[in-house]
């Protein structure tokens, strides 16, 4: 019988190693540790609770079912957030079929980049959020973030909500470091402009 784990005090790398040995409690601790940040990121990306639940669940299932492929040279959380972000972006792309898209980012070089940085309007949940917007700053920031282009949204959330470094975000989103910095600077300015109107 394996000894009981003090899972809550183990670093991610140890938990992953135990999960690779088939220890159920290590899997559960990884979920417990990251369910909130992953769900928060995905929810703020897609602005739909039900879709966010499904995407967060899909993220964990994908990661944990492939845990033996994890390479310890990368941070486990980076791998997890990368998959969560990719799933959220894919979901937004699929949802774009029902929305109107205008002007991709000026620096976008490929069609995929144009798609990912396109500004979306006409999304029902965002309109609902607009209607719900109140004077409270937190809610106003949430609304403003929801209106950012998907890649700007990813960058700003990873940088300022999850506290990731620029280098980590670049690795996570497969973008050049300079592009990440530009996106974050632009996102900050867009957010500030949006919030000026609500203050």
């Amino acid at each position, binding site marked *: 019988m394996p000894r009981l784990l003090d899972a809550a005090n183990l670093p991610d790398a140890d938990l992953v190693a135990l999960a690779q040995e088939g220890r159920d409690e290590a899997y559960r601790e990884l979920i417990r540790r990251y369910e909130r940040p992953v769900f928060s990121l995905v929810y703020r990306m897609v602005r739909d609770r039900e879709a966010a639940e499904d995407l967060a669940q899909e993220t964990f299932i994908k990661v944990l079912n492939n845990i033996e492929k994890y390479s310890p040279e990368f941070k486990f959380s980076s791998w997890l957030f990368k998959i969560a972000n990719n799933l959220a972006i894919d979901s937004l792309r699929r949802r774009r079929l029902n929305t109107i898209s205008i002007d991709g980012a000026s620096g976008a070089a490929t069609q995929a980049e144009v798609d990912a940085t396109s500004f979306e309007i006409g999304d029902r949940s965002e309109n609902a959020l607009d209607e719900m917007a109140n004077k409270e700053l937190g809610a106003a920031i949430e609304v403003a973030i929801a209106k950012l282009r998907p890649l700007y949204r990813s960058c700003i959330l990873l940088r300022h909500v999850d506290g990731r470094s620029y280098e980590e975000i670049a690795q996570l989103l497969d973008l050049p470091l300079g592009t990440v910095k530009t996106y974050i600077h632009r996102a*900050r300015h867009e957010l500030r402009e949006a919030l000026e109107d609500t203050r």
Partner: protein
Amino acid sequence: MTLSRHLLPDELDLLLDGESGFGVQQLTGHLRDCEQCREELDALRLFVSEIETLPEMLPATGFGDRVMHEVHVFEPWHVAIRTSVAGWVPSSPVARVAAGAALTGASTLITGAAAWGWANRDATVFVGGLVTERARDGLFASLSSGAQALVGPLAVTFGSGLPLFAVAGATLLTGAGLGFLGLRAVAARARRLEA
């Protein structure tokens, strides 16, 4: 040398991110003298801290269980062996010491016997041959009597000895095979009914 104009948004971002590259010294120099730019940078810092304090959101209750329901926890073979072996190790220290002593004693005896056998190879081969022959005769006799009881009439035809043993063996194997197939069919039917 300091700037003669106010800082641009990108320059404020550089300071906010704590950059230290080329040209930043000039910006910080300007910041010391310009109250308006200092206020602008403070406002930017406050704004970023407001984003950073957004609360975490909770998925619905039972999220972990739903995930685990879809996750295939796989125990590699080497871990399974290690776990099984660990299961045999006594939990109390005294019992562990006793088990260790018993194992050491047993292995010492086996090693001693093997060494003696090697030193007296002729005697070992003779005794081994004798024991093997006796065991073979005993086994053959019991199988023959069992087979005669099972296929009595055929025993008359083939008499005793090797042919009878072969027929009895074939009959037993056929019976076992049919039994196995029957059990498999019953299990498959039970699984279908369960589904």
